[in-house]
């Protein structure tokens, strides 16, 4: 699973930090920090964060099993 947040879009609403606190964290009042390569067990929480972000700022891949194998195959 890989993810990136478009921080131009991000409004610091913190929904993601609430839904996946080990992956996303607010830093100060409105800066967002995140781990671009979270552990597999975070998958469901990340998927919920992606869906909940009100400005669709989070792009992630490998959120489902098929995605996970695709990810493995194109790392070379």
């Amino acid at each position, binding site marked *: 699973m890989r993810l*990136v947040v478009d*921080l131009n879009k991000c409004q*610091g609403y913190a929904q993601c930090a609430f839904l996946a606190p080990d992956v996303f964290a607010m830093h100060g009042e409105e800066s967002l*920090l995140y781990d671009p*390569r979270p552990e597999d067990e975070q998958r469901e929480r990340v998927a919920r964060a992606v869906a909940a972000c009100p400005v669709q700022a989070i792009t992630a891949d490998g959120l489902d099993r098929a995605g996970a194998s*695709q990810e493995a195959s194109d790392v070379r």
Partner: protein
Amino acid sequence: MSADHLERLRREGRIVIVGASLAGLRAAETLRAEGFAGDLTLIGDEPHEPYDRPPLSKSALLGMASPLRTQLPRRREIDAKWRLGVAATGLDLAAKRVRLADGDEVEYDRLLIATGVRARPWFKEEEARLDGVCVLRTREDAADLVRRLRAGPRRVFVIGAGFAGSEVASACRELGLPVSMAERAGAPLVGALGGVIGSVAADLATEHGVDLRTHVTVTALEGDTVGRVRAVHLSDESVVEADVVVVSLGSLRNTEWLTGSGLGAGPRGVACDAGCRAFDFRGIVTDDVFVAGDVARSPHALFGYQFLSLEHWGNAVAQAETAAHNMICDGADRRPHLWMPAFWSSMFGVNIKSVGVPPMGEHLMITQGSLAERRFTGVYGHQGRVVAAVTFDNARWLEFYQRQIERGAPFPVEFPTLDRRPEGRQPVPAGFPDPSLPTHGPMVTLSGYSPADQQLVFHPSRH
């Protein structure tokens, strides 16, 4: 080009992308998303799949992410041939061929140049080789810096107080490390945001314990007997002991491989038209070579058709998408790259965001909040128009000002704003060191919200 020819290109053409990072990857995805079914080759000199750089100076330094694990997510499969770990070394425009460092040659029908920039190294080579002298551009740079910061240096010295340098200084303070930062100008961020905002950044840095030294330059780096850096010498004759030195003096464009190719490429980047087509050295636009990302320099209708070089993450993505679209389209189907410049940074716990082109602004108004509280919106004006805005922990207002810039709204800002303080009633000089700006030019405004339907409205120059 005939419709036939274009159809063949889309079906079985060969597209080569040089530079396999943010812009290269997003362009490849866009090509496939828009139906390009031919051969796609990505050439990158870094031996890694595309990874993201902004976290390298933020979450990676703070230990929240591994610097070696910032690979970019894929928007879709791209079914490309990857040539990673091998640099492009030359371009033959006539034969439509890219030469590679391993002697191979790759032919193309369309080429995208997305080779970005690299960190400007310390100018004295021998000093730059001292152990402990670092730059920050690649994931290896970041991993090396993280390792050095973890080892608990006695002091970190940052040369250059731009965004990158200030972010490093901020991370060091958060890690509890003593840090000094030297800047030639009077304050951090002056080149990007001007002296007024720069003085807020200076206060932030000093309050967080950064030993900030302005109006000075570093004259020499001193090593010890075993080749480790031990001290930094400054133009005011002071000497600061430090065992890690981070050189943060901006970047150099990766255009050397294009020398002699006949393209309009040089130290300022590769010039292209608003459709991302590269100019040759005669100033004539090519039709099969495109440019995107940090290496590109392109005219922006909203800003007097000045050529803008934007080292911004969002620009790389947007320009890559436009370039890719135009590579497999023709005539009226092509789109201009009219992306509104925007970036973010984060330092000392404050979220800094900007839209437009602040260095164009001569004047600045604090339309919301206050500088003293470090929470405000600043609006920049140029020749009676709003051209940029910056926020410190006030990002929610940015989109509104983006619309103002697109509409060419008048400056000084006439409307009343929420949370306007007495200090924000009058514009003040923005305090850029060198406001070398053209004074004439047609005025152009944008209307519409979707990048696909932005329409240009021309107003003849009023000057």
